[in-house]
């Protein structure tokens, strides 16, 4: 899931400077799960914007604002209300904001910060697990990714700052390599760690990336 956080309201208001009529878009998937862009959060931000003198021309929680097909459908059904707006405020990840912006031909501004791809442990607790490098080697590391979970993305073992299972960057962070060693011991695959790992192939992650099967 794409984990999002609410953008500072002051910054949102700044981005909407000079725009009086706003249409608010929510996200029915990831941002709803993160409690950052669902029905409730759309309702909340509408209240705040109204207090600050903005006129809300409409609002809608698109099931997935990152799916252009759904955004096209949304733009047709909500056309009259969108047309009255000077800008859209999107409570979704960066992919959602851009997909909406491409379709509606109006400025679309982010209300959230897209922070990472990760897991939900429970409500309000999210952890980064994958950087989508395009060169997955989880089979070597007991299913724990050092690229995403080691601050230095080290591939051949921990740095000298790993101590008592924690990372030098922050004592509240687990050292990914400590976790990998422990997991591989559990799996009786410790020998895998002794193998030299080549540098990552960053040509697999040339931006912008695309998958075109057809």
């Amino acid at each position, binding site marked *: 899931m794409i984990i999002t956080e609410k953008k500072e309201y002051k910054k949102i208001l700044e981005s909407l400077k000079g725009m009086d009529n706003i249409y608010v878009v929510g996200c029915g998937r990831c941002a709803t799960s993160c409690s950052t862009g669902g029905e409730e959060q759309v309702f909340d931000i509408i209240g705040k914007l109204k207090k600050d003198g903005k006129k809300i021309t409409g609002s809608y929680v698109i099931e997935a604002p990152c799916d252009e097909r759904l955004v096209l459908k949304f733009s047709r059904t909500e056309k009259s209300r969108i047309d009255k707006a000077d800008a859209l405020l999107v409570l979704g990840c960066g992919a959602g904001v851009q997909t909406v912006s491409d379709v509606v031909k109006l400025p679309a501004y982010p209300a959230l910060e897209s922070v990472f791809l990760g897991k939900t442990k429970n409500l309000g607790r999210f952890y980064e697990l994958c950087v989508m490098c395009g060169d997955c080697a989880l089979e070597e590391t007991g299913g724990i990714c050092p690229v995403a979970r080691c601050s230095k993305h080290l*591939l*051949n073992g921990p740095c*000298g700052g790993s101590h008592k299972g924690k990372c030098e960057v922050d004592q509240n962070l687990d050292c990914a390599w400590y976790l990998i060693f422990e997991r591989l011991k559990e799996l009786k695959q410790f020998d895998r*760690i002794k193998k030299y790992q080549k540098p990552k192939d960053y040509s697999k992650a040339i931006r912008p990336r695309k998958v075109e099967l057809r």
Partner: protein
Amino acid sequence: MTFKEALKNKDFVITAELSPPKGVELEEVLKKADFLKGKVDGVNATDNQVAVLHLSSVAFCALLKQKGLDPILQMNCRDRNALAMQADLLGAYALGIRNVLAVSGDYPKKSLHHVVKPVFDIDSVQLIRSINEMNKGIDFAGEKLIGAPSFTVGGVVNPGADPIEGQLVKLKKKIDAGAQFIQTQIVYDIDGFKKFRDKTKDVKIKILLGILPIRSAKMAQNILNIPGVHIPKKILERIEKSKDPIQEGINISAEIINGLKGYIDGVHFMTLNNVEVIPSILEKIKA
């Protein structure tokens, strides 16, 4: 005698690090370089240590070379991608620099430069291997170099890390990648280091013990914040009670080195540029 020759021929090799300045005022630090002449086998030039801006380690090594010292270029994996690393290595070689110490590099989080993008394109094991490939005339992409360098390359280890197995696995990988010497993180715990050496008996390359002479009780407390560095209580008490903590730090450093004779192949002094204490420590080292 060059550092490379010292590694080959001497039983006890001595190196010291110098940090280049944050700025271009070099007079003071070059005086310290002059002071080290004839006292050490090699001088490390730190590379933006603790992610704080300093004058380039390559440029500083070239200045050390001009002073007649044999510089050891520290190269971290944080500040350059593999292309820039190779370019700097070739440039360093052209300037007469023959030794490299590969390190991961501290994360910039605690530095004033914490907003920068850390690179970590390759890790220290991969860097050691790449340098040895360059020594064979092959670049990172597997293509031929026009003229191969001949670097003596080393790595680091933290003997106090707990658990130690991560360090042991990585140390073995560094040696397999062609590391020719090891300089350790600073050590105060004699028994702890002996245990580490018992686990690394098969290491044939020289291990130089990291020594940072403590200068005050406050400094000791700061050192305790370094992951995997343990200062035994007795040492802390001696520093706290001493009327001359700098002299006490010198005494303690010599005792650690003497206490580890037979377990180490030399010493690497990391004095935070207080190099003037080095001769006083060396005087106390038993043959």
